């Protein structure tokens, strides 16, 4: 069981942050050397390494490097045009209001090896730091996971999308009213998948409820790591509300043009074999309560079209918006396929819904 960071660690964490703040303006390499040479803090124990790792990551994120690429290009172009070194330095330095010596010494100051520490503003709080450190511990342990199960209830789209992008290898165990149950196992000799699983930790707190159980083996010790809703782990950045500008525009236009409908951003995913399908919106008629699922498929990857057409066949309340030029010839007149140009027009979607109402009649609360 990892020793999580908590409020009792605040004193030595505060000291560590003070020490780090004192190094502001110096290169990262120098801070690393100083840490390696210093005596270990008895209050911290082995967790000092975790805290330093987190502090370094925090500082790296805060250190915004100066923009020197354009200056370098000018300088190298000036030298290539035949100017002598001193002349080229003088000319470019004058153009940017610095001395030739300063320009020569700071020519690569924006690169990681020469980057200097910048103290973040606002400064990091020990309490926030503990949450960050806990997240780092959870991720560090999950890298050693052999298999895991994950239960997600609500607001799971961002997490599952990230898992898919990372190739984490999560497979659907079952989809119930309580949510989605997923399982994960490490492929033989494949550490990448475990890292992808660890990358999901910052997104877990954004789900409504979650339970992650991972069987891990760290340095010959076996154990099960359990992360649940409410654990002291810092959430990552807020997931983007929309996947594309197209979706954002549609949501805005639809809310303005169809007050009789309620637009739900993240409906319950649909199980398709071992996969999950995530329609973009759920459109619920306020008067009848009938719901439609709407997916806007930009089809940048055209190979996904067959899967979406299969879903169209299977789900009677599923509307598919596809770029007009990519609508398959046999589906141009399909009652639930909406072709679009630069934007999805709300009127076309409402027309399809009205046609569906005429065909199918009210099916309130079907889903």
């Amino acid at each position, binding site marked *: 069981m990892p020793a999580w960071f908590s409020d009792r660690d605040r004193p030595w964490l505060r000291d560590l942050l003070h020490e780090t703040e004192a190094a502001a303006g110096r290169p990262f390499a120098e801070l690393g050397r100083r840490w390696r040479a210093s005596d270990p803090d008895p209050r911290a124990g082995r967790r000092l390494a975790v805290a330093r790792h987190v502090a370094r990551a925090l500082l790296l994120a805060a250190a915004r490097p100066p923009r020197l*690429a354009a200056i*370098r*290009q000018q*300088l*190298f*172009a*000036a*030298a*290539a045009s035949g100017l002598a*070194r001193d002349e*080229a*330095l003088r000319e470019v330095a004058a153009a940017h209001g610095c001395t030739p010596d300063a320009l*020569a010494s700071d*020519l*690569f100051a924006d*690169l*990681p*090896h020469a980057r200097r520490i910048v103290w973040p503003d606002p400064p990091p709080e020990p309490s926030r730091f503990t949450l960050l450190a806990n997240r780092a511990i959870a991720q560090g342990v999950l890298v050693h996971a052999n298999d895991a199960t994950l239960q997600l209830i609500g607001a799971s789209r961002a997490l599952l999308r990230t898992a*898919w*992008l990372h*190739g984490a*290898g*999560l*497979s659907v165990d079952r989809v119930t009213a309580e949510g989605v149950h997923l399982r994960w196992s490490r492929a033989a000799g494949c550490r*990448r998948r475990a890292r992808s699983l660890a990358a999901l930790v910052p997104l877990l707190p954004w789900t409504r409820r979650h339970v992650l159980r991972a069987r891990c083996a760290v340095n010959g010790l076996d154990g099960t790591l359990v992360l649940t809703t409410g654990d002291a782990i810092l959430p990552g950045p807020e997931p983007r509300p929309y996947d594309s500008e197209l979706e954002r525009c549609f949501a805005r236009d639809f809310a303005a043009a169809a007050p009789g409908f309620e637009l739900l951003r993240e409906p319950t995913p649909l199980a398709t074999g*071992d*996969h999950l399908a995530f329609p973009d919106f759920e459109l619920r008629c306020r008067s009848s309560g009938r719901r439609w699922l709407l997916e806007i498929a930009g089809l940048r*990857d*055209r*190979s996904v*079209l*067959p899967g979406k*057409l*299969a879903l169209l*066949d299977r789900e009677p309340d599923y509307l598919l918006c596809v770029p007009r030029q990519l609508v398959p010839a046999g589906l141009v007149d399909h009652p639930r396929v909406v072709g679009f140009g630069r934007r999805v027009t709300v009127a076309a979607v409402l027309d399809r819904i009205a046609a569906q109402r005429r065909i199918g009649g009210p099916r309130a609360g079907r889903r």
Partner: protein
Amino acid sequence: MESCGTTLDLCAGVLRVCHWPSALRPPFGLVPAGAELRGPARLRAAVRRTLQQSGAAFDDRVTPPPLAPETVPRPPQPAPTVLHAWLANDRRGIACGLPETTRLDLVMAAVHTTRQQALVVVRDSGAESMWLRVFGSHGVRRGGEEVCAVATAADAARTMHWRARRHDLLVVDRPEQMPHTTLEAVLDGSAASSRLGFVDRPDARLLLRWAAGLGPVVGVAHAGPGPHRLELVLPLPAHDRITYDAAWHTFLGAFDAFAATRPQAGFGTFVQQARRDERQRPALLAWHRALHVASWNEAKAAATAELLQRHRQQRVLVFTPSRESAYQLACTHLIAPVTAELPRRERQQALAAFCAGRLRALVGPRLLDLGVPEGTADVGVLVGGGYGRNQHDARCRRVGRSGLVYQLVALDTVEVGRAHRFGRSAAGATAVADPGRR
């Protein structure tokens, strides 16, 4: 949707075959998992072939849609002769020793023939920039559709779970320069049924290993004579000589003991063992220190400065052993560096500027190896370091046939033997120089 027996699908990089005919033997590598068969995506072509030969109906849901007719690039005229051998071999095979321009023509011809999007996998972002630049000049991104995608081996291995079903033509450029595990991940993870490999120099052992993933050799071309190579042997400065000798002594003390106990084991085994053994680790660090001193020192810095001065009117590529030496040369002589640390756009702009003639010299450790087309430079300076014969060849190929390659070698160090091994033959001329003293 076609209603038929066997279906092929891809899930998280794993090929899943449902309703396999019971009378048919599945290809080797597919294993039963419940009611279906599973295996690496690489087996898709074998599964399709087996089903086609038996006449069984199947639905391949992995096949990406073909390119629209207006997006298919024009085939080069005349088509490379290797193309016919490749097509005759079920669109799989490796071509050895082709020049880069012929490689590009062959990829274009293959895309034209198969009408499939191609994924070109290269060693690093330097090579990626070069391929993208060449593809861009051929206008292969049409109507918002990417006809040929280029990815580094590491990137392709990481993203193959979603790339796998996008491309039905996989092209691997210089697999011999890619890490073995990464290359395996790419070859196993791709579902492409058409595969093409480009190898600089045929090596039977490696070709045999890649046969399952890329296919057999379908063509071998003789690369022809390279640029004139001149070896400059430079004595180490006195203080570096002391450091080198001390480090080499520490290394040999441990390595000799290792070699005495395990005479059959090679240097790689020693490195693996020394990494884990605290007593042997100093020897490994000493070996690195010795190489570091030999590969970059004051004598080499002075020699490089003289060479840059001598060839200031020509296009020069300086291949350094490390990032630090590249920055030092860049700062001293104001020549653009190309390192992995630099922003990608800056790197690409520097490479493009060199190819266009706006920059006369570039300096860098590894990304330069494949970053500019073959024969672009007039002069190459191999300062030191290096990861073997393939890299040495790749560096020399950047220089035109009428050009000149200087190889700087530290006298009485491990570099002398390495230079002869990597260069395979004696240099055109060898000179012992003492730069900086006239």
